[in-house]
């Protein structure tokens, strides 16, 4: 009991003494990253410990990764506990909420990449350039945006596809041209 009481006292002193500077958003995201790392590396450690590890002599194939995973889990746990215990002094100005357009951009990028194998590189690039440019600057003229998207795609296809023989996926064009 006295040991637990001692620990509690120490933690309380630690809580008051340590005042660190950090923004609210940074702290929230830092905790998210620590949790992701702890869960992810714990799973990888489980995989490393349960899979067949070859070793005729010397260090087994899963030994080195296991050491690294354990160190990472310990460091992330220390970081997370420290974040929860330390009294943070929020000196950073109140950050505005992340704009929806940033998340939309990320979604568009993922959809764009997925469309490479459906519409092909050319069509998906034209579509992406139009939608992304228009979404970021709604005031842009449709005609201008479309013209820039088509000419930029043509330029990229000429440089990489024709000049440097990069074989882009073009299922739709191949289907249309037979």
């Amino acid at each position, binding site marked *: 009991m006295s040991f637990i009481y001692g620990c509690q006292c120490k933690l309380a002193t630690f809580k008051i003494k340590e005042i660190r500077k950090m923004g609210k*958003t*940074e702290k929230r*995201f*830092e905790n*998210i*990253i620590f949790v*992701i*790392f702890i869960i992810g*590396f714990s799973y*990888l450690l489980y*995989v*490393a410990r349960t899979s*067949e*590890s*070859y*070793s005729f*002599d*010397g*260090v087994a*194939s*899963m030994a*080195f*990764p296991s050491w*690294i*995973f354990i*160190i*990472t889990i310990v*460091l*992330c746990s*220390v*970081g997370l506990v420290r974040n929860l215990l330390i009294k943070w002094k929020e000196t950073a100005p109140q950050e505005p909420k992340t*704009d929806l*357009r*940033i998340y939309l*951009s*990320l979604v568009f*990028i*993922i959809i764009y*990449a997925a469309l*490479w*194998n459906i519409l092909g590189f050319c069509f998906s*690039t034209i579509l*992406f*350039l139009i939608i*992304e*440019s*228009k979404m*970021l*600057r709604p005031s*842009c003229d449709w005609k201008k945006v479309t013209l*820039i998207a088509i000419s*930029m795609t043509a330029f*990229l296809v000429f440089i*990489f596809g024709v000049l*440097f*023989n*990069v*074989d*882009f*996926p073009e299922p739709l064009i191949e289907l249309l041209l037979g």
Partner: protein
Amino acid sequence: MNFATILAGVFSIIGNPVTLLWILLGTFLGLVFGALPGLSATMGVALLIPLTFTLSPVVAIGMMLGTYIGGIAGGAVSATLLNIPGTPSAVVTCLDGHPMAMQGKAARALGWAAFSSGWGSIVSWILLITISPFLAKMCTGFGSPEYAALAFFGLSIIAAVSGDSLIKGIIAGLFGVSLSFIGIDPIWGDLRFTFGSINLMGGISTVAALIGLYSIPQILNSCLDKDNEKITGKDLTIKNIVPPFKEQWAHKLNILRSSLIGTLIGIIPATGGNIAAFIAYDQAKRFSKDSESFGKGNPDGIIASEASNNGVCGGALIPMLTLGIPGDSVTAVLLGGLLIHGIQPGPALFANSPILVAGIFTTILVATIFMVLLQVFGIKIFVKTLNVPVNYLNSVLVVLSLIGSYAIRGSFFDVLLTLCFGTFGYLLSKAKFPMAPIVLGLVLGCMFEGEFRRALKLGGGSAKIFLTRPIALVFILIAFAIIISTIIKSKKSRAAK
């Protein structure tokens, strides 16, 4: 080689305007490839090889070497202006180049990058033409203990590139090392963490990871920026771009030290510009009287990174030309290009084709001069690209990034990897985790693990083998000194805050 042979080789290059034009074109294309995010120098040389089929061997080599030198130097352009490294070796340039650009000194930052690259190339060129056989013999004698110690030394630099938080830097570095475990075990050959995917058997592509971690978060973070608010072209006069000779002279030690580090790292096979840049940056920070300003726009950071990564060019050519062993990934592609043109690098090359060797040496110098001139006069154009409205610029950067990750192996899986790293990288950037240690861990993790285990096997399971190898021991001692001094410095700065 006698004097007449050397003269004949030199004049075969500088006396032929067509050859000079091809070198200029190669250097220009290299700069463009290096400057565009997602497209690297390796990719530039690989894609240009088919274009050189119809050219004579000397012209073809000139063009490829120009692309190599231009490509490595060009990486600084996007690293400085966009905070997206154009090539893996320009990762370190981001640390000080972009903050300097944000202070309105974009042109001067690019000027420092150009001239440091030039000095780095020239120092490594001098070593190439003078003591290349001796250096090649020394560095190719590296065994597993030396490689493991070198990788450990490289990993000890994580602290220097961690930014404000050491613990975040170490976690990021360990994440990078963990990524390097994916694929085939370097000793026993069994599959690790591939989860049944054929695509993961070859490991994580460094280029895909780099593009994902740097390009996508930067594009997302800057997509709401107002047009032209970051960098304007006010200071775009040659006077402002070119660092005065007095200033360059004041940084002579950093230039020389970084160039030598680059050359030596370049000679060691299977290393590269990124490792050299990390080591040179760390050393520059340690020797600087103003180490606190590193990461906030200190020109010494740009000088260290650029002089060392271009120093690697000449260094990597030393074992390639003298022994036929490529020093880094670009020279591996370059070696293939030389073989296609019927040139077999190795000791026999110096004996059988001295004019060709003298021609290659001249080409490197000519390409270096072209690279500096193209950069100085191209800075106006580079900086003005930032005046392109953000909505168009960001959209095109996304497309270029995905093309870059796809084109290197023609694999759609690499595009998916880029997206995964991009999404996770965005979260990491929000939590202010440094990206450089991840790249360092990914590049060095596999090398350290494989060589360390091999060294242990050589030593019969005992780590004493590291104490019996002088070079390995020196690397380990320096690494421990770096780690201890970093911890002390970190404690002191925390106490001061």
